[in-house]
């Protein structure tokens, strides 16, 4: 049996080696997890200033939404462009390109392994949050949890593909990580990390929904926190974005590899 053209054995090896590698950096990963505190800062602002009511959320609803946003972000965060740029500039990419394995799969494996390492820290932060805000405690139902899990994975896939698109530009320019900022800025404001999208004025909301960003945080977080959400259309949009991005990354990558100059080799 093969998944994405990879045999089970290759997948297993990739994941276990990357997991072992990530376990070495537990403190770093704990710090990474902590650096996602932004939703909590925003939560304290929204609830302190009683703004939630104007977009139909009481304090408990806000707390659940932002904790969910934090968790979704933890498991959909992507840094492939930075690893790729480093590997590309230092010439480490050359041996990867010679292997009968698409280099992007190596990065996918390292992201998944990192998520597994991150899990205990994320749970610890969630528990701390519940201790500080006991009234917001809730346990999502099994179907809810499953759908949230699935949509978070799709969110990760979209984010990964978007960044891979930028990473492939490394073949043309040396500093493609600077370009990543141009994705990160709209992501920050339109994904729902700072505020649930239902707070947006309707014309801004319409524009935002045309971009992939709301499906990266807002949609999975709404499922997880049990807010009313159009599940069918949400998943449809996620799958649509994935099916647009996969061929785009593929094409750009193929064009790029032809220009590869093996810097540092």
């Amino acid at each position, binding site marked *: 049996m093969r998944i994405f053209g990879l045999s089970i054995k290759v997948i297993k090896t990739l994941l276990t080696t990357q997991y072992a590698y990530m376990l070495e950096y537990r*403190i770093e990963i704990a710090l*990474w997890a902590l650096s996602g*505190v932004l939703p909590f*800062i925003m939560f304290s*602002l929204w609830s302190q*200033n009683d*703004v939630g009511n104007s977009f139909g959320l009481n304090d408990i609803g806000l707390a659940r939404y932002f904790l969910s946003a934090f968790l979704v972000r933890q498991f959909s965060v992507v840094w492939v462009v930075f690893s790729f740029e480093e590997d590309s500039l230092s010439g480490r990419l050359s041996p990867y390109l010679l292997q009968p394995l698409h280099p992007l799969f190596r990065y996918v494996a390292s992201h998944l392994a990192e998520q597994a390492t991150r899990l205990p820290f994320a749970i610890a932060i969630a528990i701390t949050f519940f201790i500080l805000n006991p009234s917001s405690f809730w346990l999502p139902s099994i179907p809810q949890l499953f759908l949230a899990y699935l949509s978070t994975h799709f969110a990760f896939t979209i984010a990964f593909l978007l960044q891979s698109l930028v990473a492939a530009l490394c073949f043309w320019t040396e500093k493609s990580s600077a370009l990543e900022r*141009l994705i990160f800025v709209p992501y920050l404001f339109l994904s729902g990390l700072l*505020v649930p999208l239902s707070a947006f004025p309707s014309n801004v909301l319409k524009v935002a929904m045309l971009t992939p960003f709301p499906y990266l945080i807002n949609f999975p977080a709404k499922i997880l926190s049990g807010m009313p959400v159009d599940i069918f259309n949400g998943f449809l949009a996620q799958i649509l974005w994935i099916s647009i991005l996969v061929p785009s990354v593929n094409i750009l990558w193929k064009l790029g590899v032809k220009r590869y100059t093996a810097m540092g080799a």
Partner: protein
Amino acid sequence: MQRYFKTIRLFWSTAFASQLEYQLNFLIELLAMLGTLLGSVFILSLFFTGGRQLGDWTWESALVIQGVYTFLDGLTNALLRPNLTEIVNYVREGTLDYVLLKPIDSQFWLSVKKFSFAGLPEIILGLLIVFWAAIQSGSSFSIYSLFVFIISLLIGFIILYSVWFLIAASSIWFVKTWNATEVLRALLAAGRYPISAYPVVLRFIFTLVLPVAFLTTFPAEAILGELKFNILFFGLILSSLFFIFSRLFWKFALKHYTSASS
């Protein structure tokens, strides 16, 4: 003293020459900055829907805070980030040896070696927003309020620099500190909003533990002519303590430096 000014001039003119190579970068930074500003003003506006106020700050006066934040963010991008994130690399590659051997203060060398000109538009725009929004909110400038504003910005910058430098200096022990700076950046983002908008516990933390209030809220109060003198005085003491501590910490860290290459 003159030697230090001459060194800065040489450093920054070479930095300028080398950055001319990456003009596209400049354009990208400019776009990212405008996008960030637009986005944060938009999010800020959501707090004011339905005639509400944000922790007894009006819309115009809250914009002054955004301006101060933008200004400091520009300084961070121009000066702090390019220099202080390099320290890790000097430690890892052992090239810190060469810096230490130079006949100039090593903390000075490490802090001003580079200057990223892409941060300059942000610095200027930040100041423009501060003055525009301050006029909009009906503040009448006096020599005194401008003077207090400059002093409080200086206080904010020194605190910001010291915290960044402390984290960067800890790379002597922990070679990877990139993540720690990310945590810091995430927390500093709290400075986009007035300190009185936060719950009491966070207000306390952001004033005394990680003094975000001194970075944005107090300078904004200064230009609006509302800053109390005792806070300014306290800020002077606090920023001096932070700076002295960063220097002592660096001296202490160097004693533990083992040099990676030799």
